[in-house]
């Protein structure tokens, strides 16, 4: 009866259109009378603007307008705080600042005119290193602030001095992670027009369209009702579409000129114009007893926040809660700092502050194992959080805490054996050639599901049932603005509705995201839609069934039933902000856990690393659609492999050095592990819909540290700075320091 319900790998609802090239992405839309708009980008990473002269540009035939800050009603936006100018007025703070928008009848005219907009700059000193930026004498990125420190967050638990005194062994390490580019295949694009109800309407890619609306309406000084966003197919997001890109610019142009306006960023503009994953500078000091039990951790992390706040504060909040890993530790001192610089804005990217910490905590774990002569699985088993454990932030871990199950599943699959004296790794395998070394590495990680630290996370769904005369359900329509960014949420919500309504999934339709027709579901981020929007859809379906039953009892003859429900994360677990004294809090609504084991081959002559085999054990609760879940794991591992081995967005003195995909490398099919084995541990989340929970981000987290630990196992070298490029590995193997061209790293303050 319920074909396609929970647990079945039903086909994605959008797949037939996508294989035929019929599914439209933002750049595929056009309208009659449409104008073309291009951005005039900041000429310098840090400079004062003396004057903007558009006269030559305006003289180009076909050019209708050169919009500057003077044309923006309220010249500010920002996802957390309004600290970014829509169009820069007095100052530019990074190369991604937008100074003007040229609007013309043709793209060619707009592009020609862009080069003729004269901007007179006074260059300012550049702050490009967050550690330098923290010094009192540093140049200020924002002159209205007393320092470049955006936020300091800390946790104090127990007494670390006591903890270190009780330790038999102490290991220390510093770790550095780079800026990372989202590199979704579809560059930013948008088409704005005034719809038939007088609303300025933007067709674009987004992750939380209702939050975009807030920012568009604010900048244009319009009531929310007069703004609308429609989200068609989205070519990947990964956090990079949480922040505004083209939305306000095209809306502004369409509103001013009363004609449709389209803007499409080139790949270079995309790489320049949207934020990146935060680089972390981490310093760790961990103590453990000779039995391998953690006694104390002391951790400092400095995050490069780039030129504007974006979501740096919540990323830092997340990071501080994860820096000690999924381990129980009685004494902890953890400090995290987010610092403004003139580098690229840093923002959400798959993991949201949970991706960088494992590069530190999982190498620390292996260093402890090595110092104690313990098996890396065994030492983790002795310290992992379990349901009821007290986390570093003082909260009690919930029933879905499944770190142990994921580690056990991955270890068994990789050939580990559980013996009376503990876990024992598999023996060494045979080498293919004398210049190759094989190694095996394990890493665990975890991530929150849903928005954290007191945020009132919620999702709303409307379900409309069409009834036959006997009251049976013919079909259902789900309205819920959970953006399909490729992850498959549309299909999963249809399955959850089908399961709840007892209907075949083919009879459930999920409406396209349109703020005029679908209620806010919150963001397609934080691995949250299965949990948050899934719960909202199930709740709305149950209410619809009750209404239907009531209608039947009353013999009302109703043929249409509508129910709306909002699911609040706080109904499951009321999260709280960091306590001002000790940082204790209830950080997260729910959690996802994963363990990965990498088997790598290192060429000791070239430093090249090939991942031969990767085992990924992930907990998604009860998977709603196992095949879509596998897609998330495989895609997450792809990003993890890139993070580990090749991806690094490079800036020098604020200038982008990796401006194209020929310079910023993401893994091709030839770079991926030859063998990927995915295991779902299926520890249900009692708070998720039918036991399911999110997993969009967790599979990215353990990949890089598992590979780094495998490189160490193969060669004895610790690679502590990502990515582990052939050059870095080669140098580490020979003890040759990096060339001075690479910026020198200093210890954390």
């Amino acid at each position, binding site marked *: 009866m319920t074909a396609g319900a929970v647990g079945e790998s039903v*086909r994605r609802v959008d797949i037939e259109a996508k294989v*035929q*090239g019929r599914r439209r992405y933002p750049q595929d839309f056009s309208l009659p009378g449409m104008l073309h708009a291009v951005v005039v980008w900041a000429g310098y990473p840090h400079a004062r603007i003396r004057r903007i002269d558009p006269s030559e540009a305006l003289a180009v035939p076909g050019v209708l307008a050169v919009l500057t800050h003077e044309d923006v009603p309220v010249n500010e936006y920002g996802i957390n705080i309004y600290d970014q100018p829509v169009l820069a007025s007095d100052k530019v703070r990074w190369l991604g600042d937008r100074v003007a928008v040229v609007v013309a009848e043709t793209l060619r005219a707009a592009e020609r005119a862009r080069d003729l907009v004269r901007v007179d700059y006074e260059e300012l000193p550049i702050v490009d290193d967050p550690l330098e930026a923290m010094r009192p004498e540093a140049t200020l990125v924002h002159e209205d602030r007393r320092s470049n420190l955006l936020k300091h967050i800390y946790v104090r638990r127990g007494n670390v001095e006591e903890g270190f005194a009780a330790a038999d062994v102490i290991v220390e390490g510093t770790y550095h992670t780079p800026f990372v580019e989202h590199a979704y295949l579809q560059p930013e694009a948008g088409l704005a027009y005034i719809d038939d109800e007088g609303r300025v309407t933007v067709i674009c890619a987004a992750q939380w369209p209702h939050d975009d609306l807030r920012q568009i309406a604010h900048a244009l000084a319009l009531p929310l009702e007069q703004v609308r966003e429609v989200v068609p197919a989205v070519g990947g997001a990964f956090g990079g579409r949480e922040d505004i890109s083209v939305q306000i610019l095209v809306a502004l142009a369409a509103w001013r000129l009363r004609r449709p306006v389209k803007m499409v960023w080139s790949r270079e503009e995309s790489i320049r114009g949207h934020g990146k994953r935060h680089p972390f500078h981490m310093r760790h000091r961990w103590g453990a007893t000779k039995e391998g039990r953690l006694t104390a951790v002391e951790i400092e992390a400095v995050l490069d926040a780039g030129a504007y706040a974006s979501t740096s504060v919540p990323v830092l909040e997340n990071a501080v809660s994860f820096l000690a890993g999924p381990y129980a530790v009685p004494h902890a001192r953890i400090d995290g700092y987010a610092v403004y610089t003139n580098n690229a804005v840093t923002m959400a990217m798959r993991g949201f502050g949970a991706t960088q910490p494992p590069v530190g905590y999982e190498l620390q774990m292996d260093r402890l194992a090595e110092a104690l002569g313990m098996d890396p699985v065994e030492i983790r088993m002795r310290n992992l959080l379990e349901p009821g454990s007290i986390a570093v932030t003082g909260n009690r871990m919930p029933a879905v805490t499944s770190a142990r199950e994921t580690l056990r599943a991955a270890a068994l699959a990789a050939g580990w054996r559980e013996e009376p004296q503990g876990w024992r790794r598999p023996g060494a395998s045979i080498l293919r050639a004398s210049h190759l070394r094989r190694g095996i590495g394990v890493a665990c990680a975890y991530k929150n599901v849903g928005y954290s630290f007191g945020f009132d996370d919620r999702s709303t769904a409307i379900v409309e049932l069409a009834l036959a005369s006997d009251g049976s359900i013919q079909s259902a329509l789900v309205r819920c603005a959970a953006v399909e960014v490729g992850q498959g949420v549309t299909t999963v919500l249809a399955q959850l509705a089908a399961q709840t309504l007892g209907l075949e999934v083919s009879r459930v339709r999920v409406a396209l995201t349109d703020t005029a027709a679908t209620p806010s579901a919150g963001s397609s981020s934080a691995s949250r839609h299965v949990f948050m929007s899934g719960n909202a859809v199930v709740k709305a379906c149950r209410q619809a069934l009750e209404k239907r039953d009531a209608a039947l009892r009353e013999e009302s003859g109703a043929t249409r039933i509508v129910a709306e429900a909002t699911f609040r994360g706080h109904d499951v677990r009321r999260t709280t902000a960091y306590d001002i004294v000790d940082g204790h809090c209830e950080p997260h609504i729910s959690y996802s856990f994963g363990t990965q084991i990498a088997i790598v081959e290192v060429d000791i002559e070239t430093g090249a690393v090939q991942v031969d085999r990767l085992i990924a054990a992930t907990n998604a609760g009860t998977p709603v659609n196992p095949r879509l879940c596998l*897609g998330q794991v495989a*895609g997450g591992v*792809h990003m993890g492999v890139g993070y580990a081995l090749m991806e690094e967005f490079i800036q020098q003195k604020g200038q982008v050095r990796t401006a194209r*995909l020929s310079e910023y490398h993401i893994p091709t099919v030839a770079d991926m592990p030859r063998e990927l084995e995915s295991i779902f541990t299926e520890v249900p989340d009692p708070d998720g819909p039918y036991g399911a929970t999110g997993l969009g981000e967790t599979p990215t987290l353990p990949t890089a540290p598992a590979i780094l630990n495998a490189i160490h196992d193969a060669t004895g070298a610790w690679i502590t700075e990502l990515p582990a490029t052939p050059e870095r590995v080669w140098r580490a193997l020979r003890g040759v320091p990096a060339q001075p061209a690479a910026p020198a790293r200093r210890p954390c303050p």
Partner: protein
Amino acid sequence: MDGKVRVQATINGQPVEFLCEPRQSLLECLRDVLGLTGTKEGCSDGNCGACSVLLNGRLVNSCLVLGVEVDGQEVTTVEGLAGPDGLHPLQQAFIDHAALQCGYCTPGMLLAAKALLDREPEPSEERIRQWLAGNLCRCTGYDRIVRAVQDAARRMRREADAHAEG
């Protein structure tokens, strides 16, 4: 005509005539002049493969070919993959193996795979991985794509054998 050039070509089996600027790429002509938006722009400098099409059966990045170059030539895009009898075996295999997520790389990936299978009906997995390395995907991790191409190759060989016997 504002310096535009008349181009006559066969696109997806249909004779087509259009005007283009000498500087316009084939990608721009397909998308902006002919409205064939199935072919995607990912970088416009030949690094991502999203705009892959077949030019006289050969795999090209349409961003690196000028529109005027296809005068008198045959172009195949994603819109031309399905036949009167339904989807191309590659399209069907991509569906059956869930070989896409966001789908933006899919048209290019399909055309690249078709170029391979048209010339090599029995490629090894290694050969498929090597051949598709010019097409980037940020969502799937590629594994499902490789499986889909292997499966499509099997189906196409079966169809070809059935055809030969019939």
